[in-house]
Protein backbone atom coordinates (compact mmCIF):
# COMPACT_ATOMS: atom_id res chain seq x y z
CA UNK A 1 0.00 0.00 0.00
CA UNK A 2 2.90 2.36 0.75
CA UNK A 3 4.32 1.76 -2.72
CA UNK A 4 0.94 2.50 -4.29
CA UNK A 5 0.59 5.65 -2.21
CA UNK A 6 4.06 6.85 -3.16
CA UNK A 7 3.35 6.21 -6.82
CA UNK A 8 0.04 8.06 -6.70
CA UNK A 9 1.60 10.97 -4.83
CA UNK A 10 4.38 11.22 -7.42
CA UNK A 11 1.74 11.27 -10.15
CA UNK A 12 -0.16 13.93 -8.25
CA UNK A 13 -3.26 11.79 -7.98
CA UNK A 14 -3.34 11.01 -4.27
CA UNK A 15 -4.82 13.88 -2.35
CA UNK A 16 -7.12 11.72 -0.27
CA UNK A 17 -5.07 8.67 0.51
CA UNK A 18 -6.15 8.82 4.13
CA UNK A 19 -6.73 5.89 6.43
CA UNK A 20 -10.45 6.40 5.85
CA UNK A 21 -10.11 5.99 2.07
CA UNK A 22 -7.94 2.92 2.55
CA UNK A 23 -10.43 1.50 5.02
CA UNK A 24 -13.27 1.97 2.55
CA UNK A 25 -11.35 0.19 -0.21
CA UNK A 26 -10.53 -2.64 2.20
CA UNK A 27 -14.20 -2.83 3.21
CA UNK A 28 -15.26 -3.14 -0.42
CA UNK A 29 -12.71 -5.85 -1.15
CA UNK A 30 -13.89 -8.17 1.65
CA UNK A 31 -17.27 -9.25 0.14
CA UNK A 32 -15.58 -9.47 -3.26
CA UNK A 33 -13.08 -11.98 -1.84
CA UNK A 34 -15.75 -13.95 0.04
CA UNK A 35 -18.05 -14.33 -2.96
CA UNK A 36 -15.26 -14.98 -5.46
CA UNK A 37 -13.61 -17.71 -3.37
CA UNK A 38 -16.94 -19.38 -2.56
CA UNK A 39 -18.12 -19.26 -6.18
CA UNK A 40 -14.81 -20.67 -7.40
CA UNK A 41 -15.00 -23.55 -4.89
CA UNK A 42 -18.64 -24.31 -5.67
CA UNK A 43 -18.39 -24.16 -9.45
CA UNK A 44 -15.13 -26.12 -9.49
CA UNK A 45 -17.00 -29.05 -7.96
CA UNK A 46 -19.79 -29.14 -10.53
Amino acid at each position, binding site marked *: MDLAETLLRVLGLARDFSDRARGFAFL*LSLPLMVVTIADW*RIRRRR
Partner: protein
Amino acid sequence: MYAGHAAVALALKTRDPRVPMVPLVLACYGPDWLETVLGLSRGRGEMSLYTHYLPGLLAGALGAAALYAIVFQRPGGWTILAGWLLHWPADFFTAHKGLLSPTDRIGLDLYNLPLADCVLEASVVLVCCVLYARTFAHSRTQRRWVAAMAVALIVLQALLDIGTAQGEPVWRPSLARREWRTHPHAFPSAAATSSLRMPLALPSPTPTVSERWRSMECEA
Protein backbone atom coordinates in the same frame (compact mmCIF):
# COMPACT_ATOMS: atom_id res chain seq x y z
CA MET B 1 -26.07 -1.25 1.43
CA TYR B 2 -22.98 -3.33 2.07
CA ALA B 3 -23.27 -7.15 1.98
CA GLY B 4 -26.54 -6.83 0.06
CA HIS B 5 -24.69 -5.77 -3.10
CA ALA B 6 -22.74 -9.05 -3.09
CA ALA B 7 -26.02 -10.88 -2.63
CA VAL B 8 -27.46 -9.07 -5.66
CA ALA B 9 -24.45 -10.30 -7.66
CA LEU B 10 -25.23 -13.88 -6.59
CA ALA B 11 -28.85 -13.49 -7.74
CA LEU B 12 -27.75 -12.02 -11.09
CA LYS B 13 -25.31 -14.89 -11.55
CA THR B 14 -28.22 -17.32 -11.54
CA ARG B 15 -29.83 -15.32 -14.39
CA ASP B 16 -26.70 -15.38 -16.55
CA PRO B 17 -24.05 -17.95 -15.50
CA ARG B 18 -21.78 -16.94 -18.39
CA VAL B 19 -20.71 -13.75 -16.61
CA PRO B 20 -17.60 -14.29 -14.43
CA MET B 21 -18.16 -13.57 -10.76
CA VAL B 22 -15.40 -10.97 -10.27
CA PRO B 23 -16.65 -8.42 -12.84
CA LEU B 24 -20.21 -9.06 -11.70
CA VAL B 25 -19.42 -8.28 -8.03
CA LEU B 26 -17.30 -5.31 -9.09
CA ALA B 27 -20.27 -4.00 -11.10
CA CYS B 28 -22.68 -4.42 -8.19
CA TYR B 29 -20.29 -2.37 -6.01
CA GLY B 30 -19.39 -0.23 -9.03
CA PRO B 31 -20.46 3.23 -7.81
CA ASP B 32 -18.59 2.65 -4.53
CA TRP B 33 -15.38 1.59 -6.30
CA LEU B 34 -15.68 4.50 -8.71
CA GLU B 35 -16.18 6.84 -5.77
CA THR B 36 -13.04 5.43 -4.14
CA VAL B 37 -10.92 5.81 -7.28
CA LEU B 38 -12.19 9.28 -8.18
CA GLY B 39 -11.96 10.27 -4.53
CA LEU B 40 -8.18 9.92 -4.68
CA SER B 41 -8.02 13.19 -6.55
CA ARG B 42 -11.07 15.18 -5.38
CA GLY B 43 -12.15 13.71 -2.06
CA ARG B 44 -14.43 10.72 -1.66
CA GLY B 45 -17.30 12.63 -0.03
CA GLU B 46 -17.70 14.93 -3.02
CA MET B 47 -17.28 12.15 -5.58
CA SER B 48 -19.89 9.95 -3.89
CA LEU B 49 -22.53 12.54 -4.83
CA TYR B 50 -21.68 12.23 -8.51
CA THR B 51 -21.17 8.47 -8.70
CA HIS B 52 -24.46 7.71 -6.94
CA TYR B 53 -26.98 10.14 -8.43
CA LEU B 54 -29.08 8.82 -11.31
CA PRO B 55 -27.27 10.38 -14.33
CA GLY B 56 -23.88 9.43 -12.85
CA LEU B 57 -25.16 5.95 -12.14
CA LEU B 58 -26.37 5.51 -15.72
CA ALA B 59 -23.10 6.81 -17.16
CA GLY B 60 -21.10 4.47 -14.94
CA ALA B 61 -23.30 1.50 -15.83
CA LEU B 62 -22.96 2.11 -19.57
CA GLY B 63 -19.19 2.55 -19.21
CA ALA B 64 -18.84 -0.64 -17.19
CA ALA B 65 -20.95 -2.66 -19.64
CA ALA B 66 -18.91 -1.35 -22.57
CA LEU B 67 -15.63 -2.09 -20.77
CA TYR B 68 -16.83 -5.62 -20.00
CA ALA B 69 -17.80 -6.22 -23.64
CA ILE B 70 -14.41 -4.96 -24.85
CA VAL B 71 -12.25 -6.78 -22.27
CA PHE B 72 -14.08 -10.11 -21.98
CA GLN B 73 -15.45 -10.37 -25.53
CA ARG B 74 -18.41 -12.43 -24.38
CA PRO B 75 -22.13 -11.96 -23.71
CA GLY B 76 -23.31 -10.60 -20.37
CA GLY B 77 -23.00 -6.85 -20.79
CA TRP B 78 -26.67 -6.41 -19.88
CA THR B 79 -26.10 -8.26 -16.62
CA ILE B 80 -23.18 -5.95 -15.78
CA LEU B 81 -25.40 -2.98 -16.62
CA ALA B 82 -28.19 -4.34 -14.40
CA GLY B 83 -25.79 -5.01 -11.51
CA TRP B 84 -24.49 -1.45 -11.61
CA LEU B 85 -27.99 0.06 -11.87
CA LEU B 86 -29.33 -2.07 -9.01
CA HIS B 87 -26.83 -0.37 -6.71
CA TRP B 88 -29.14 2.65 -6.42
CA PRO B 89 -32.34 0.92 -5.23
CA ALA B 90 -30.28 -1.13 -2.78
CA ASP B 91 -28.63 2.00 -1.37
CA PHE B 92 -32.01 3.74 -1.17
CA PHE B 93 -32.87 1.56 1.81
CA THR B 94 -29.71 2.22 3.76
CA ALA B 95 -28.62 5.79 2.97
CA HIS B 96 -29.53 8.96 1.05
CA LYS B 97 -28.80 8.93 -2.68
CA GLY B 98 -29.20 11.59 -5.35
CA LEU B 99 -31.96 11.72 -7.93
CA LEU B 100 -31.49 13.97 -10.98
CA SER B 101 -29.33 16.38 -9.00
CA PRO B 102 -26.49 15.23 -6.71
CA THR B 103 -27.95 17.25 -3.84
CA ASP B 104 -31.56 16.02 -4.26
CA ARG B 105 -31.05 13.01 -2.06
CA ILE B 106 -33.62 10.59 -0.72
CA GLY B 107 -33.43 7.33 1.18
CA LEU B 108 -34.58 5.39 4.21
CA ASP B 109 -31.22 5.83 6.01
CA LEU B 110 -31.22 2.41 7.67
CA TYR B 111 -27.45 2.65 8.24
CA ASN B 112 -28.46 4.81 11.17
CA LEU B 113 -30.80 2.10 12.46
CA PRO B 114 -28.07 -0.57 12.63
CA LEU B 115 -30.28 -3.41 13.85
CA ALA B 116 -32.87 -2.85 11.10
CA ASP B 117 -30.08 -2.55 8.54
CA CYS B 118 -28.53 -5.82 9.69
CA VAL B 119 -31.89 -7.62 9.53
CA LEU B 120 -32.64 -6.25 6.05
CA GLU B 121 -29.24 -7.07 4.59
CA ALA B 122 -29.10 -10.50 6.24
CA SER B 123 -32.52 -11.25 4.71
CA VAL B 124 -31.32 -10.17 1.26
CA VAL B 125 -28.19 -12.30 1.65
CA LEU B 126 -30.19 -15.36 2.72
CA VAL B 127 -32.74 -15.08 -0.10
CA CYS B 128 -30.06 -14.57 -2.76
CA CYS B 129 -27.92 -17.42 -1.38
CA VAL B 130 -30.93 -19.74 -1.58
CA LEU B 131 -31.47 -18.71 -5.22
CA TYR B 132 -27.77 -19.27 -5.92
CA ALA B 133 -27.77 -22.66 -4.18
CA ARG B 134 -30.81 -23.85 -6.13
CA THR B 135 -28.99 -23.13 -9.39
CA PHE B 136 -25.37 -24.08 -8.68
CA ALA B 137 -25.08 -26.10 -5.46
CA HIS B 138 -26.27 -29.66 -6.03
CA SER B 139 -24.03 -31.62 -3.70
CA ARG B 140 -23.76 -31.39 0.07
CA THR B 141 -20.25 -29.91 -0.15
CA GLN B 142 -21.42 -27.22 -2.51
CA ARG B 143 -24.31 -26.34 -0.22
CA ARG B 144 -21.86 -26.10 2.69
CA TRP B 145 -19.82 -23.57 0.74
CA VAL B 146 -22.96 -21.55 0.01
CA ALA B 147 -23.83 -21.62 3.71
CA ALA B 148 -20.29 -20.54 4.63
CA MET B 149 -20.51 -17.71 2.14
CA ALA B 150 -23.85 -16.55 3.59
CA VAL B 151 -22.47 -16.66 7.13
CA ALA B 152 -19.33 -14.74 6.12
CA LEU B 153 -21.37 -12.02 4.40
CA ILE B 154 -23.76 -11.69 7.36
CA VAL B 155 -20.82 -11.53 9.81
CA LEU B 156 -19.22 -8.77 7.72
CA GLN B 157 -22.51 -6.90 7.73
CA ALA B 158 -22.98 -7.35 11.47
CA LEU B 159 -19.45 -6.06 12.16
CA LEU B 160 -20.16 -2.99 10.05
CA ASP B 161 -23.44 -2.35 11.88
CA ILE B 162 -21.82 -2.82 15.28
CA GLY B 163 -19.20 -0.27 14.26
CA THR B 164 -21.93 2.13 13.12
CA ALA B 165 -23.85 1.69 16.37
CA GLN B 166 -20.78 2.79 18.38
CA GLY B 167 -21.13 6.28 16.92
CA GLU B 168 -24.65 6.87 18.37
CA PRO B 169 -26.29 7.30 14.95
CA VAL B 170 -29.35 9.49 14.40
CA TRP B 171 -31.95 8.10 11.97
CA ARG B 172 -32.92 10.66 9.30
CA PRO B 173 -35.05 9.06 6.55
CA SER B 174 -35.98 11.36 3.69
CA LEU B 175 -38.40 10.78 0.84
CA ALA B 176 -38.91 14.26 -0.51
CA ARG B 177 -36.72 16.91 1.05
CA ARG B 178 -33.61 18.26 -0.56
CA GLU B 179 -31.78 17.80 2.71
CA TRP B 180 -32.63 16.99 6.29
CA ARG B 181 -33.38 20.02 8.44
CA THR B 182 -33.86 20.44 12.14
CA HIS B 183 -37.11 21.71 13.62
CA PRO B 184 -37.30 25.53 13.31
CA HIS B 185 -37.09 26.14 17.07
CA ALA B 186 -33.54 24.84 17.00
CA PHE B 187 -32.37 27.65 14.71
CA PRO B 188 -30.38 30.40 16.46
CA SER B 189 -32.25 32.99 14.38
CA ALA B 190 -35.58 31.77 15.80
CA ALA B 191 -34.26 32.20 19.35
CA ALA B 192 -33.06 35.72 18.52
CA THR B 193 -36.49 36.82 17.26
CA SER B 194 -38.47 35.16 20.03
CA SER B 195 -38.61 38.40 22.02
CA LEU B 196 -40.25 40.14 19.04
CA ARG B 197 -43.01 37.59 19.02
CA MET B 198 -43.84 37.93 22.71
CA PRO B 199 -46.03 41.07 22.37
CA LEU B 200 -48.30 39.06 20.09
CA ALA B 201 -48.99 36.45 22.75
CA LEU B 202 -52.41 36.41 24.37
CA PRO B 203 -52.72 38.59 27.47
CA SER B 204 -53.19 36.96 30.84
CA PRO B 205 -56.75 36.02 31.81
CA THR B 206 -59.03 38.89 32.85
CA PRO B 207 -59.80 39.30 36.57
CA THR B 208 -63.36 38.16 35.89
CA VAL B 209 -62.28 34.89 34.39
CA SER B 210 -59.68 34.35 37.09
CA GLU B 211 -62.24 34.95 39.77
CA ARG B 212 -64.60 32.49 38.17
CA TRP B 213 -61.87 29.86 37.80
CA ARG B 214 -60.84 30.26 41.42
CA SER B 215 -64.41 29.76 42.56
CA MET B 216 -64.77 26.66 40.41
CA GLU B 217 -61.57 25.29 41.88
CA CYS B 218 -62.94 25.74 45.37
CA GLU B 219 -66.15 23.95 44.46
CA ALA B 220 -64.14 21.03 43.13
